[in-house]
């Protein structure tokens, strides 16, 4: 099932790049999704809840494992830190207490990186979790903002914009209260700029959540 939306406008801000999503495209994982945001493309497969290694077992909740595979080479320290962020974001939204002593494994494969990779990974993960049918207390989405030298905000920057930017901020936002689940910054910015970026991301999050809704709606209305 594929959903596509051509253009998003979020108020007076420049639009997000084109989003494309396909759920359930892999047959072996319990949930899978392919997420394309502009030219950035990631593929996610989710296994779980399933058996867990005794050493990793947690008696009152599910054990999360996130594997981020780069396009080329082996995952390094950079990937580990991103994995940890995605893992902790998932732990906060998925109701892991409903599946104690079990494991939920999320495998993210980067297909193309053309900017805003972390937010694309977050979005793909969320769509994958929805496809896997895991109980969650809210959905989440990732939004990347780039601040240029003049302090202008570009939402969902491409690779070139990211490189030229003075600061790049990535947030994960939950769908229930539009609060910040995760935050990661590169470069330095002032407090006001941070707050502006948060506000812009929250507005952009609305369009992404609308996309999630439309996509789910289309998927289930066919049946």
């Amino acid at each position, binding site marked *: 099932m594929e959903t596509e939306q051509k253009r998003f406008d979020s108020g007076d801000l420049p639009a997000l790049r084109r989003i494309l999503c396909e759920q359930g495209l892999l047959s072996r994982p319990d949930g899978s999704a392919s997420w394309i945001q502009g030219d950035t493309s990631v593929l996610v497969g989710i296994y779980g809840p399933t058996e867990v290694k005794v050493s990793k077992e947690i008696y009152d909740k599910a054990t999360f494992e996130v594997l981020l595979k780069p396009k080329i080479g082996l995952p390094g*320290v*950079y990937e*580990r*830190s991103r*994995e*940890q*962020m*995605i*893992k*902790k*974001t*998932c*732990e*906060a939204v998925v109701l892991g207490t409903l599946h104690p002593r079990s494991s939920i494994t999320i495998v993210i494969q980067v297909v193309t990186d053309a900017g805003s990779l972390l937010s694309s990974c977050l979005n793909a993960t969320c769509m994958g979790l929805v496809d896997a049918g895991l109980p969650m207390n809210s959905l989440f989405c990732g939004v990347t903002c780039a601040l240029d030298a003049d302090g202008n905000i570009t939402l969902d920057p491409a690779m070139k914009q990211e490189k030229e930017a003075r*600061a790049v*901020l990535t947030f*994960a936002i*939950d769908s229930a*209260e539009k*609060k*910040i*689940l*995760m*935050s*990661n*910054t*590169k*470069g*330095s*910015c*002032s*407090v006001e700029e*941070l*707050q502006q970026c*948060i*506000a812009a991301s929250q507005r952009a999050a609305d369009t992404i959540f609308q996309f999630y809704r439309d996509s789910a709606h289309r998927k289930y209305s066919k049946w």
Partner: protein
Amino acid sequence: MAAAGGFRTVEPLEYYRRFLKENCRPDGRELGEFRTTTVNVGSITTADGSALVKLGNTTVICGIKAEFAVPPVDSSNKGYIVPNVDLPLLCSSRFRPGPPGEEAQAASQFMADVIENSQVVMKEDLCIVDGKLAWVLYCDMICLDYDGNLLDACMCAFLAALKNVQLPAVSINEETGLAEVNLKEKTPLTIRKEPVAASFILFDSLLIVDPTAEEEDLATGTVTIVTDEEGKLCAVHKPGGSTLTGAKLQDCISRAVTRHKEVKKLLDKLIKSKKAK
């Protein structure tokens, strides 16, 4: 007392909540209170710069070793800074021996990000001869005792050690073309920014500063804010966990700015007393 100890083991969360209801913590601190910070610089004589930081029980030692290297091909006028955080089994039973675990790797990456973001030392300053020779600073941070808030301690130890670095003068012998080190003539590094970290945990919508290891385990989320002396943000690091509003984040930032002043005062005093000797 024995009953309280039992209660703590059986129902740690409830035990902790009882304290929070009274606006205090099991170790007697208030919610917004940092543990005593002690810094000792120049503790390792064989390193080019070193510092030992204690934040309550959490102990981190940082050693900086300068070596020669060929600058990268794509930017011939830059040196390197290589941070590495080590969490040995020695510091806590939660870590396993062997290759660095997930937490150590994430901490190393965080340090590398902050160094890059804040421009604490311009990499251009580390260049000796354009395209031929540059300094590489290996910054090793080893945790000796893990009692929570690793990032704050690492950041403080790193900054203190960096202030302690003395690089020897290097001249190029024109006949042989080799570098000659003059160990008698040493100069400190130019430090452009002074990043200081402040960490918080989220507990039932409450913000608690400088968590211990026990508190970190009970918490539903952590936030680390790194600010420089101008109050600019070098990092807003929140790796998942429970949600935070913009207003709460603002609260964290203003506390981080206050913390920056405290740490800066401490470091300045230390450097001054060191110089006086």
